[in-house]
């Protein structure tokens, strides 16, 4: 089977649509859009021609834009949120290369009275279920311990739910936490959390842009069912050298950036480390002061312009957690990623990016207890080659196409035990697989009102030898096996993933949209705990496990008010999930060669309504998000095969975010969240076995945790700004009115041993938590 063959067929299929009208005397304008002050490329800036309303382009991930249209004289306007617009007169009679610099307005206090129209991309474009956050928006939102965090801020958007109190894990539109594709400069991050989920692996100092796709994923993305979280790192200042940093309650951060050669290349390095372990050392309690507990992150990126047509980027990330308990037990885990990219401009119309990507997640456990010296290691490593091409056919047509090959190597577990240990050393069979895909999509402005993006992604997944592959009966007993030699294909799955999105502009200020997306997932995270664990295991699709498939249909209505100062959107979605994984009662997922025999396979559905109202500009800005939703699973052997609530099912979810810029010195922000408690399994009776009370359960997830709500506040004081130095203080309060939210509810006998009663005990993790952070820049 040849992916490229399919690609060619698909490209031919689309060709007639694009070439139907190619009048003579057409030329194109292209170039790169950058921040004039630090040279950072701007992603998603818009370029429009005043004389040709409806004609325009948006800069891509590398700041590149291209428009081609009939010859003439035009007024070209380039704009980007938070920046002053750029207006130029151009005479188009030959192909032009025009690089544009935009200057930040300095704050979000963008003047309300403007002569030209604000951007209304959200109305016109056939983009659904997409949320973009700029670092400016993330910066002011209060979070736990004052450690600003992308993954916690996106949880305030409708349709995205937190995996738990203070947790950086998230669920999108009823999907699982492992169904999110998290990309850092295109590299998959397999475990995006530190300290068992309380912090994300993304140091916000190093991040430029965050886009979340809850649905309607463009065809270039694939591999996970629920969402794509596309995170882009800063390129570094190509104008001047600078240092910035921050000192917080939990961690300190430092960032160094500067030009390699002015205007040609730049670099940036960001690092952060926590120091909770230093506090532990101060403790007099000997069970605490012998422990280690820290994590660090290092992000580095460099780019260099070889010439007008070629630019190279190198991005690196490494982060690791280290937890140790008095020398008897230790675990360290973390991700490492690397991306080498080559941007090449073939001509005025064809932009190419070639990426070579490495990503790696591993953990190592050390146990030194009595006679037991045991080391356990596990690793997942990807090598990924990706080619993306963007062809700007004319003002109304753009074609994106590309191919992608990923080689996955999973080491599920190597247990090394000392000779005197009670355990045997074992090495679980390594898993090799290859994931190939090709895609084509067409962005088409069919009429002034109707815009379409449609495409097709073809993905194939093959599990490769060497190894022995077992077959199981429904009870989980081995009924046979086959052995394969190296690189022999054990099993292949080929899937077609259609993607379609359309928008129809009713007026300049409102539109309706529809989308359909199919996603396929071939790597599955095995986790039978309610929170994410660093030792959760990724396994590939196999002869026993079929790819997970999700079909999502969404409809939306979009409306802007008051010169696009306010935007409102509502989306309804329905999602059908196939081959969803659950676990047999008492499943043993650790160090188990026959782990696939421990799984139950079923289906699921999720549906809901999301409302979003945002004020984009002015002294007071922010948003209100509300979600009404349902997420269910249906699995043979659970709840008599009937639909039951998924654990992330929460009926209502409300979030409010307000940022108020009181003066040049003070900015205040507040967030409020309310949601229905998770679906949980509680007992409906009790009995006694061998003298101990045992609870009796009747249905899966038939109960609810209590409703959750919380208010967070923050105030930022800007210090004196000089040309050489600026600083700020951020004071924040997490859970300001000290709500005792339930993290867990446990049922147990009353501790008084003369009592014959049982009780429910609620654990609250974080009560009111104040924090302070100092940031500087010079």
């Amino acid at each position: 089977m040849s992916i490229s063959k399919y690609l060619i067929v698909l490209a031919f299929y689309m060709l007639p649509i694009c070439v139907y009208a190619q009048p003579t005397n057409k030329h194109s304008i292209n170039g790169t859009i950058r921040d004039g002050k630090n040279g950072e490329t701007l992603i998603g800036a818009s370029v429009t021609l005043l004389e040709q309303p409806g004609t325009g382009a948006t800069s891509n991930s590398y700041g590149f834009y291209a428009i081609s249209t009939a010859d003439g004289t035009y007024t070209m306007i380039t704009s980007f949120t938070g920046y002053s617009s750029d207006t130029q007169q151009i005479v188009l009679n030959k192909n032009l290369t025009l690089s544009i610099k935009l200057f930040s307005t300095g704050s979000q206090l963008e003047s309300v009275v403007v002569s030209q129209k604000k951007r209304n991309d959200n109305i016109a474009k056939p983009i659904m279920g997409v949320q973009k956050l700029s670092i400016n928006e993330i910066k002011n939102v209060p979070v736990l311990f004052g450690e600003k965090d992308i993954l916690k801020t996106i949880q305030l958007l409708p349709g995205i739910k937190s995996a738990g109190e203070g947790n950086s894990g998230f669920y999108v539109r009823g999907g699982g936490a492992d169904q999110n594709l998290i990309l850092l400069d295109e590299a998959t991050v397999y475990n995006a959390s530190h300290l068992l989920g309380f912090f994300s692996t993304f140091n916000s100092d190093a991040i430029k842009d965050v886009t979340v796709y809850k649905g309607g994923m463009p065809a270039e993305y694939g591999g996970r069912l629920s969402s794509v979280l596309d995170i882009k790192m800063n390129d570094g200042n190509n104008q001047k050298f600078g240092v910035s940093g921050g000192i917080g309650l939990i961690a300190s951060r430092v960032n160094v950036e500067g030009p390699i050669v002015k205007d040609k290349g730049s670099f940036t390095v960001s690092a952060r480390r926590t120091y909770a372990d230093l506090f532990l050392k101060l403790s007099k309690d000997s069970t605490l002061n012998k422990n280690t507990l820290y994590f660090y992150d290092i992000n580095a990126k460099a780019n260099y312009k070889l010439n007008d047509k070629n630019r190279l980027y190198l991005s690196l990330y490494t982060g690791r957690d280290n937890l140790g308990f008095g020398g008897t037990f230790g675990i360290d885990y973390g991700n490492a990623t690397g991306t080498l990219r080559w941007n090449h401009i073939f001509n005025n119309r064809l932009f190419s990016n070639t990426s070579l990507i490495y990503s790696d997640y591993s953990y190592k456990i050390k146990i030194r207890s009595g006679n037991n010296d045991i080391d356990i290691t596990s690793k997942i490593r990807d090598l990924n080659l990706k080619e993306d091409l963007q062809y700007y056919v004319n003002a109304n047509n753009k074609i994106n196409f590309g191919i992608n090959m990923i080689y996955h190597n999973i080491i599920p577990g190597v247990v090394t035990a000392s000779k005197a240990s009670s355990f045997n050393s074992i090495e679980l069979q390594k898993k090799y697989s290859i994931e190939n895909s090709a895609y084509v999509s067409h962005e088409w402005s069919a009429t002034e009102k109707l815009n379409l993006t449609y495409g097709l992604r073809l993905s194939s997944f093959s599990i490769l030898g060497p190894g022995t592959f077992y077959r199981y009966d429904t009870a989980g007993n081995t009924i046979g096996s086959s052995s394969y030699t190296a690189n022999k294909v054990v099993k292949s799955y080929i899937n077609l993933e259609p993607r379609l999105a359309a928008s129809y502009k009713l007026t300049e200020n409102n539109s309706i949209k529809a989308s359909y997306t199919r996603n396929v997932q071939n790597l599955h995270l095995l986790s039978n705990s309610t929170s994410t664990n660093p030792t959760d295991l990724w396994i590939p699709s196999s002869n026993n496990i079929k790819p997970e498939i999700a079909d999502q249909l969404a409809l939306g209505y979009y409306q802007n008010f008051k010169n696009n100062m306010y935007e409102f959107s509502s989306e309804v979605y329905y999602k059908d999930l196939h081959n969803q994984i659950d676990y047999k009662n008492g499943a043993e997922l650790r160090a188990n060669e026959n782990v696939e025999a421990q799984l139950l396979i079923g289906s699921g559905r999720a549906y809901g309504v999301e409302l979003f109202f945002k004020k984009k500009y002015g002294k007071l800005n922010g948003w209100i998000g509300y979600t009404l939703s349902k997420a269910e699973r249906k699995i043979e052997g659970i709840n008599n095969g009937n639909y039951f609530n998924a654990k992330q099912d929460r009926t209502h979810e409300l979030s409010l975010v307000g940022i108020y810029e009181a003066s040049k010195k003070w900015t205040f922000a507040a967030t409020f969240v309310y949601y229905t408690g998770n679906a949980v399994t509680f007992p409906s009776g009790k009995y006694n076995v061998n003298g101990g009370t045992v609870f009796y359960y009747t249905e899966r997830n038939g109960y609810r945790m209590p409703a959750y709500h919380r208010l967070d506040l923050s105030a930022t004081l800007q210090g004196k700004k000089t040309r050489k130095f600026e600083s700020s203080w951020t004071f924040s309060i997490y859970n300001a009115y000290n709500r005792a939210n339930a993290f867990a509810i446990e049922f147990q006998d009353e501790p008084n041993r003369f009592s014959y009663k049982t009780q429910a005990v609620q654990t609250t993790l974080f009560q009111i938590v104040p924090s302070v952070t100092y940031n500087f820049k010079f």
Partner: protein
Amino acid sequence: MQNIYKKNIILFLFLGIYACKKVITVDLKNATPQIIIQGNVTNEAGPYTVKITKTVAYTSDNIFPPVTGATVSIKDNTTNTTDALTETLPGIYSTSALQGVQGHSYTLSVLAEGNQYAAISTMPQLVPLDSITFINEATSNLVNVVVNFQDPVGTPNYYQFMQTSIKYRFFDTLKKIFVFGDRLSDGKYVRRQLLVNEKGNLANRDTALVEMQCIDKNIFNYFNQLDRITNPNNNQSSTPANPTSNINNNALGYFSAHTVQRKKAVVKL
């Protein structure tokens, strides 16, 4: 490997500067009473008993009504002899002549409240318990019991340990059940620490009584699952469910044919 997860608790302790616990009221449904059958056959001298009770509502006292008037029998499938049990106390049924033998399989039959229940269990060969010793974990200041025995190579073996701690300083006994399978320890000399448990920890001059049972696979699965839902350190880590019983017809409980050995030791620090 379980203590890896226990020790994550220490991390929560650190975060626990902020954490707090309180007793709350939860409105729970009241399921129709279910039958629980607990039966044992051992290599010790009989009589062996089968206990039949019913579930109660969560809000009720921990007093479980006995099921009386049931017809109960245990058959030795190897010798093809059946022992009809007699109800010696309400809900407690005893054998009269049956003697458990290693390697024999037994069938339990119960007719209670018009429903028929059955279970099969095979008594494994006894694996000798060499000794019990103590370990003082430097980091936890807890004294724990260690059981020492040679696991036979090449066969799957399953064990259950019941530890009773008799406190020297004040009158108190604490009972704890541990199960252990040799999935990752086949053929090893096992020095197994019975797990850290704040309530069951030992101090100088306390006495530990340990009963070691060799159990079959179904019973191991049953108690392993039971431990997951009853151990407070575990029950938030996965969705709780009723343990898979070896008794059919949706009865709760278990029927176990197992060997028994006991050791006793006093902590001397």
